[in-house]
């Protein structure tokens, strides 16, 4: 926060003191807004969910107890507060189901992210190297699928992948296969669905980092005798790394909690954390346990990302 205020100050040096103060206030305001946003739309909901995760389920409205409020005065609030405990978290460790669901979700999201990167990188690279005149059109084409509902696009894959679907009809009419391939309701279908749905989230950050790259560096490497593949791995890829990281996080994080794609394209045997949450929340009507599942999921995602950011910040500092 102070950093930006400091860099902003030289330009305001010539103005009067009140004007400078006003400018400083506006600068701070600009920074405060995202923090307020985080506070209201992330931290407050998280605290509510965390509180529910420490409660017990009850047949009432809302379906958990205690409900913390100040209607009985401060003492009532604290009496309720003392009833909170970590039983629901202990419960999660007692059944291997939850652990397996977390692991399955992480593995599926991890594989999907790698596949999305493999598919997305050449697309982004091609876009970045395309003539500047057609780049806006290419960008438009990447964004265009968002104009159709996500649900409809996932549903369309059912029509493509099912045994009598378009893909099997095509392959069979070309005599490549004689028996229809079973793809729908398998893990393969989930991977296809995730890669397809999240591809733009991978391509856009990759494109923006590749587009900024100075290609004279690659030319220099080639002039000095480095083969194109070597130049790619030694120069292009490391320079695009921020884009790779941003793209991977944008795909990986929502994919872990994905519910719709495994529900529609996956088989019933797929046990992902989204479905486990749904079961706890809707079938068991156990808001406290489902909140505990959600809190753990958040920790599973946030802790590695925080470590990663710290490492990146350190690397950047050393780079200077």
């Amino acid at each position, binding site marked *: 926060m102070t950093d930006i205020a400091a860099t902003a100050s030289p330009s305001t040096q010539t103005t009067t003191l009140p004007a400078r103060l006003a400018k400083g206030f506006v600068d701070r305001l600009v920074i405060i807004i995202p923090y307020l946003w985080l506070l209201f739309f992330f931290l407050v909901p998280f605290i509510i969910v965390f509180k529910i995760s420490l409660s017990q389920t009850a047949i009432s*409205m809302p379906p958990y107890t205690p409900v913390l409020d100040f209607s009985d005065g401060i003492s009532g609030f604290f009496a309720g507060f003392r009833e909170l405990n970590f039983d629901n978290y202990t419960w999660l460790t007692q059944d291997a*189901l939850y652990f397996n669901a977390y692991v399955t979700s992480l593995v599926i999201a991890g594989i999907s992210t790698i596949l999305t990167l493999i598919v997305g990188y050449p697309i982004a690279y091609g876009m970045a190297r395309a003539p500047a005149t057609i780049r806006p059109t290419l960008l438009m084409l990447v964004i265009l699928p968002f104009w159709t509902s996500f649900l409809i696009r996932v549903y369309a894959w059912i029509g493509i992948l099912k045994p009598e679907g378009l893909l099997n009809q095509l392959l069979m009419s070309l005599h490549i296969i004689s028996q229809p391939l079973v793809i729908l309701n398998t893990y393969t279908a989930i991977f296809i669905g995730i890669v397809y749905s999240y591809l733009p989230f991978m391509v856009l950050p990759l494109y923006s980092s590749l587009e900024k790259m100075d290609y004279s560096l690659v030319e220099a490497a080639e002039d000095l005798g480095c083969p194109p593949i070597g130049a790619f791995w030694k120069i292009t890829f490391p320079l695009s790394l921020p884009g790779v990281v941003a793209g991977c996080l944008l795909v990986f994080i929502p994919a872990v909690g994905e519910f719709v794609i495994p529900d529609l394209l996956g088989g*019933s*045997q*797929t*046990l992902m954390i989204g479905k486990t949450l749904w*079961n706890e929340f*809707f079938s068991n009507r156990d808001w406290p346990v489902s909140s505990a599942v959600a809190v753990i999921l958040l920790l599973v995602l946030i802790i590695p990302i925080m470590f990663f950011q710290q490492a990146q910040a350190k690397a950047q500092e050393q780079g200077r």
Partner: protein
Amino acid sequence: MIRKALWLSATSVFLTLFTAGGRAEDRVVNVYNWSDYIDSSIIDDFTKKTGIKVVYDTFDSNEILETKLLAGGSGYDVVVPSANFLARQIQAGVFQKLDKSKLPNISNMWDVISERTAKYDPGNEYSVNYMWGTVGLGYNVKKVTAALGTDKIDSWDVFFNPDKLAKLKDCGVYVLDSPADIIPAALKYLGLDPNSTSPDDIAKAEEALLKVRPYIRKFHSSEYINALANGDICLAIGWSGDVFQARNRAEEAKQGVEIGYSVPKEGAQMWFDQMAIPADAPHVADALEFINYMMTPEVIAKSSNYVLYANGNKASQQFVDKAILEDTAVYPDAETIKKLYTVKPYDPKTQRVITRTWTKIVTGQ
């Protein structure tokens, strides 16, 4: 900038107050019902007759409705949960008792149905039946005949007998992703009490279901409508009305897909969708008037003719289309009705066992 924002929000507060004040003059009823579950002309007729405006909103799963009700302050005046959900919601204090003096049409109701709904709502104090149906077998007539050599599907045996279901594996079997509908069916097939909550009985049901699990393509509670209609699958355990919808869609598509529905002879579970008024409903008097109107024989018959479900209104039967009234899949004969069973809602502990058992059956874990 800030001043402008304040000014804007002050204006909007003022406008909200003003419009809310204006609305209180008009009579309104906020109805929350299942999707595709009413002939919309009924709503127009109601408004014409009473001057009460109907704000009609729809949901597609009991769970969604329940979550809104339990969170409180839904703003709905009439909601239509299924009876087993209703029972638990009554316990949670979600609903208010109906003022029967405002519901003269209640004399039209059918005792056969009211007796059974009273198991969920003792004395029918909180709710009135809208439609009811069964959980049974929906099937693709041609594909099942080809696989089994008969189109006579009248028993749970076709599903729970692994030898028979194995023959249907390749053409596709879907099952409701709803343990409260499937586990009682398994218990009934095994000759046990479908209402049993004993862990031993539930384990036996689990065993029976695991035996046929390899032949089930998917557990899902709505996809089977399209899958049946498109001819993608040949057997589904589903709700009667959904299967009729699949049958109609298949007929409209004219692709030669013919869908049948059967109520298994061993007995099948009945479900009931009940009209009820939330405890915090803003327009109670209008809600009662709406519910009373829905119990008018001609009105509810019109609804049945449109949605193809049986209703719980005896007096309406003379106005129901003959084809529907005589279709034993919609209105089972008296003999079959005797064999239909109802399942009481599970207590939280049993619910946990049931959900866990179900996860094991569905995912193998």
